[in-house]
């Protein structure tokens, strides 16, 4: 067994496990923590795919920024304590979810076993394209336009968040 295969197995099991914990925990803080773990596992998987820069950004952006925001809001609303019991599990929803998952997994298994992609090797260019240099070069040449467009997206989100979370409407503004 190669090292990569073992690493893949560890990260894959970790990712699935933490994902399941995320969606099943009653306490939202526990869910959030499991999700942070999930992001680290994914980061590891990206490393097995030689995507170093994506792996680093995954931890910085998701675990470092988005999850901090989520945990902050959970704490702000004080959901970790009194209200956690309010979520009753619904039989109907549970069944529906399980059915959906089962159906999807069966379809997926059928689709993949009947039609394997046959790609067994990482491309020889995989190491080269995963570096910061090549990502940066691509981002500021070929992907310049969507990159600039994302600035508008972040601006809209910024304004939107301020507007929605501001406490009072200014009277007579």
């Amino acid at each position: 067994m190669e090292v990569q295969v073992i690493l893949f197995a560890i990260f894959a099991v970790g990712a699935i496990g933490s994902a399941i914990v995320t969606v099943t925990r009653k306490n939202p803080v526990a869910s959030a923590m499991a999700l942070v773990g999930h992001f680290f596992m994914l980061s590891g998987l990206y490393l097995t795919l030689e995507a170093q820069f994506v792996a680093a950004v995954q931890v910085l952006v998701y675990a470092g920024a988005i999850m901090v925001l989520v945990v902050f809001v959970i704490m702000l609303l004080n959901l970790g304590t009194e209200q956690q019991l309010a979520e009753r599990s619904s039989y109907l929803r549970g069944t529906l979810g399980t059915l959906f998952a089962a159906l999807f997994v069966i379809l997926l298994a059928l689709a993949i076993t009947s039609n394997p992609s046959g790609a067994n090797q990482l491309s020889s260019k995989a190491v080269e394209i995963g570096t910061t240099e090549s990502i940066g070069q691509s981002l500021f040449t070929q992907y310049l336009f969507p990159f600039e467009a994302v600035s508008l997206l972040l601006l809209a989100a910024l304004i939107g968040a301020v507007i929605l979370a501001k406490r009072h409407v200014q009277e007579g503004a």
Partner: protein
Amino acid sequence: MNIDFFGSLPLVAIWLALGAIGIVIQAFVRNNTKLVFGYYVGTLALTAFLAILSSGAKGSSFGGMIVLGGYAAYFDVLFCGAGILAMLAARPYLDRLNAELDEFYTLMVSAVAGMMLMAHASNLVVLFVGVELMSISFYVMAGFLRTDIKSVESALKYFLLGAFATGFLVYGMAMLYGGTGSLDYVEIGKAVSNGTATYPMFLAIGTVLMAAGLSFKVAAFPFHQWAPDVYDGAPTVVTAFMSTAGKAAAFSAFNPVFAAIMPDGVGGITDTMRLALAVMAAVTMLVGNITAIAQTSVKRMLAFSSVAHAGYLMMGIVAGTAYGHSAIVFYLTAYMFMQMGSFVIVGYLEREQGDGSDIENYSGLSKQHPMLAAMMAMFMFSLAGIPPFAGFFGKYMLFYAAIQSGYTWLTIVAVASSVISVYFYLGLIVKMYFTDAPGKKTTFATGTAGFTIAICSVAILLLGIFPWLLTNIISTW
């Protein structure tokens, strides 16, 4: 990398106006909504003007990321026009609710920018960013009345379901990328039509997931359930804007994507996909129209009718021909004016009568507001597809496109559901003209919303009587 700067002008202009100058204005000019309003109306007008100016510059720009001219430029003008009309209607509406904040106009312009990206997209990345820019602006606009619980609830529902649908959309994009090895429409189209897709199975899964994700954005069956609730809960001017321009944008993106992944006359799996889309279209229009009959609120009725119209529009995608695509463009234009006009009237009456969207409040409208009632009647006739209004010619084109491509059964369903729709559209007209008002009501001036209503009604009359005004433009692409 080639950058066709002239052709990209409208996109550059709106980006600069919003991202650089707009923010400075808002930072330094306080409590001057009039100025901000004027600035953003001016921005949209300038962008539309630049789009007309550069509509001849066809080709692609920014390394094939966006397409220019013709089709995309036309949609630029349409979205900017919709933005201006919605802003004009929004001023008096928000003023009455004492919720007129400068940020509303910023968000509206950023939504327009997102729509323009969707129409211009020639790469799935740009499409994705455009869809999200539009959607995020819409989420916030739906919840803009922060102290109104209905508005906040509709924003939450829109956000959660919208983000959920985005998940499917990007998963579809990932599968398309895996299947064809490219995110570029041209490359994807080549791979599909030459049958050189690396993994055809991923292509099929990707198509299904993309269709699911985009059908959420146009509110088509089976992902239409959010539409009535969100349209009902959101401020009416926002509903007017997102049910028209938002839908037009989704279709403007739908068109080239599906032209690439389901090229005409490839056969095999493409035909199956087409059939699936046809069934989706048929169910969408039936569900929309039948549920609309049962509604007692005019706002909800129009929301369901907008679901049905998404079904009609999908017929053009199913047809997949050039004629089908021009039918979509024509019908979208007509639909934008008639739906926007009727929602703005609903918003106006709501403003006047508190919760005015109940159908009972429309009784005797012809005596109180003869002009408004006449225009509302016109919009209803047009939505029902009765000549000589624009809705009729648009429907005719869509039906003809479907028959041409051999989907006669779909046309029969469409005609049948149009007949059903006549029932509730005419029901409203009967209410307005042949029943008496329950009591005396005070009237208000329409303010700038009057312009919106007037422009919309003139436009559907013009397009209905002289359809060649638009079909001539379409034929030059």
